[in-house]
């Protein structure tokens, strides 16, 4: 496998009028990696991906996608990447075969090549329904898998998936992620955006975005370690009134993060000493347990914490 990164982004920015949608973003993605973008709506994930697919021209900065830049208006990039937008990308009123034929026509694929790819991809996604099935009559999960097949018909090396599993049942989501892992197993690079923390956990590395800026980058473990260098405790008040203790805790020295999780609270501290001191006054009926921070905690600390 060659060592050149699949994607190399340097100080990429794009402005729409006065609005800076993506602000000075730099990162690189290795070949065969699952690279995730995590962020709230409007954080700039989709805009970044659309630039890297050659759909938008950046205002400043540069990017090499599979070694190609924006010099030709994105045409070269479009040839070597696959893109699945967050909206539904197949035609509901066409059959599976008609949809794939159109995708092949859009990319000017030779009929024999398209047919060979169709067989390969059907095998990959485990599609065994007739080609004449109407897309509108297929279940949501299978539709998304077919949309992925259509985006990969031209055998791209780099595949961009923009929220591929939104609105899909949990079991189908898990199936789809199995598919993503199989694709990267073939040496392809997958860049994916998501809202789901459990999906982000499955990425090799995650870029966390907020208001157009990249605020953290690393593997899920790295992000957790850098956001929470000290221990984290889950507080369960078991019916006791949490308010007096929580308002005292908020002022405790060494508290990094305090957030409600349903009936419980997560409290992160700079180190063990700070935690022990802060939790000394816990009501007797309440319990504290040491937990591993989740990506959700990371997200709350880095993204929402910055907004407070």
């Amino acid at each position, binding site marked *: 496998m060659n060592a050149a990164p699949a994607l190399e982004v340097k100080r990429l920015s794009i402005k729409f009028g006065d609005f800076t949608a993506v602000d000075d973003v730099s990162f690189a993605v290795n070949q065969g990696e699952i690279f995730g973008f995590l962020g709230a709506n409007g954080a700039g994930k989709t805009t970044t991906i659309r630039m890297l*697919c*050659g*759909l*938008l*021209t950046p205002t400043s900065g540069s990017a090499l996608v599979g070694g190609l830049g924006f010099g030709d208006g994105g*045409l*070269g990039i*479009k*040839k070597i990447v696959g*893109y699945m*937008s*967050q*909206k*539904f*990308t*197949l*035609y509901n*009123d*066409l059959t599976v075969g*008609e949809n794939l*034929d*159109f*995708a*092949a*026509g*859009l*990319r*000017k694929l030779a009929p024999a090549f398209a047919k060979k790819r169709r067989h390969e991809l059907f095998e990959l996604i485990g599609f065994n329904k007739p080609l004449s099935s109407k897309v509108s009559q297929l279940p949501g999960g299978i539709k998304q898998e077919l949309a992925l097949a*259509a*985006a990969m018909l031209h055998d791209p090396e780099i595949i961009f998936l923009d929220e591929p599993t939104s609105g899909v049942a949990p079991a189908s989501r898990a199936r789809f992620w199995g598919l993503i892992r199989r694709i990267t197993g073939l040496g392809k690079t997958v860049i994916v955006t998501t809202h789901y923390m459990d999906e982000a956990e499955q990425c090799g590395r995650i870029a966390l975005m907020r208001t157009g800026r990249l605020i953290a980058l690393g593997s899920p473990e790295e992000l957790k370690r850098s956001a929470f260098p000290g221990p984290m405790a889950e507080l369960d008040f078991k019916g006791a009134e949490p308010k007096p203790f929580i308002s005292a805790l908020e002022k405790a020295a060494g508290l990094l993060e305090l957030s409600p999780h349903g009936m419980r609270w997560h409290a992160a501290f700079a180190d063990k000493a700070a935690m022990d001191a802060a939790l000394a006054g816990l009501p007797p009926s309440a319990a504290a347990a040491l937990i591993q921070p989740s990506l959700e905690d990371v997200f709350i600390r880095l993204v929402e914490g910055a907004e407070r």
Partner: protein
Amino acid sequence: MKRTLLAFIRKELIQTLRDVRMRVLLFGAPVIQLTIFGLALSTEIKNINLAVISGPGDAMFGRVAEGFYASGWFKRVIYGSEAPFELIASGRADAVLIAPAGGLARSAARGDGRMQLLVDATNLTKARAVEAYARNIISAAAAREYGARAEPALKFDVRVLYNPAMESSMFLVPGVMGMLVCLITIILTAMSLAREREVGTFETIVSAPLSDAEVLLGKTVPYVLLGVMDAALVVAAGYLIFGVPVRGPLWQLALASLALVITTVSIGTFISTIARNQQQAMLGGFMFLFPAILMSGIMYPVENMPGAIIAAAYLDPLMYFVRLLRNIMLKGGDLHVLWTNLGALALMALVAAGAAYKRFKQTLN
């Protein structure tokens, strides 16, 4: 290029023709609308109920009255002992023709062959028609009775060309055809593009390595084809239902239809670049269509419009197309009329396609 275009054509045709609503819009609606408009917009008045009242043995008046019924415009009203006014007031007759006392022949011999015609003018159009028909019929009757010696009080010198029967469907149907082709192509194109943008499938199209021109052609050529198909259908329906002839050569008709359809598909494309969803595209289409139809001369002659409207009418592609259709179908395709109007329409097609391309490019990102 060719492979992509063919893929687009196949996809759009399948999508359009598979949808029952689209099939109805494309093929059912034009035929039905043509029939309804052709019949309902008729300016020709028929079935006028006419009662005649005369004394016994008035043979000359009887012959005049028969002339009315023989014309085909009037229907005989059978009545009892009602007074003439009563016949009209009750609505049983639209007009009553009354012979002079003592007989028509005798009063004509006195130099005053005056019959009385009562006309119900609650429907002004009908009343005017009755009056005009009556003048024709009576002067014809006078000529018949007295030959060249007759000196009719009124002289008629109307020569009706191309439509000797003055059947208004002949005049109206080509106009309605133009209107339908215009309506369907604009709405269909604007809706199809707006739908792709709304649903999100447009993202897939623009993510393919295609030039702007390829995307635009892919989304418009199928609708030009459908539009030309529809034009052919409407001409066939006009011929079969109303007997509107195609006196000029078919290539003229094909060229005119192509020029119009390119213009309207471009306008539809332009509208779709402004509209955010299908409803807006539909509304935008009608915002163009209503004035275009009113100024086209389909129903009201352009010459009768105020100056500013005439100026606007010259920017109406439908006006040129309606002129072309009437010229080709009824007159047999006078070449001067053909080339001037076709030239104007082709110019509009060029400008519209250029504007649509420019606007389309801007909105791709």
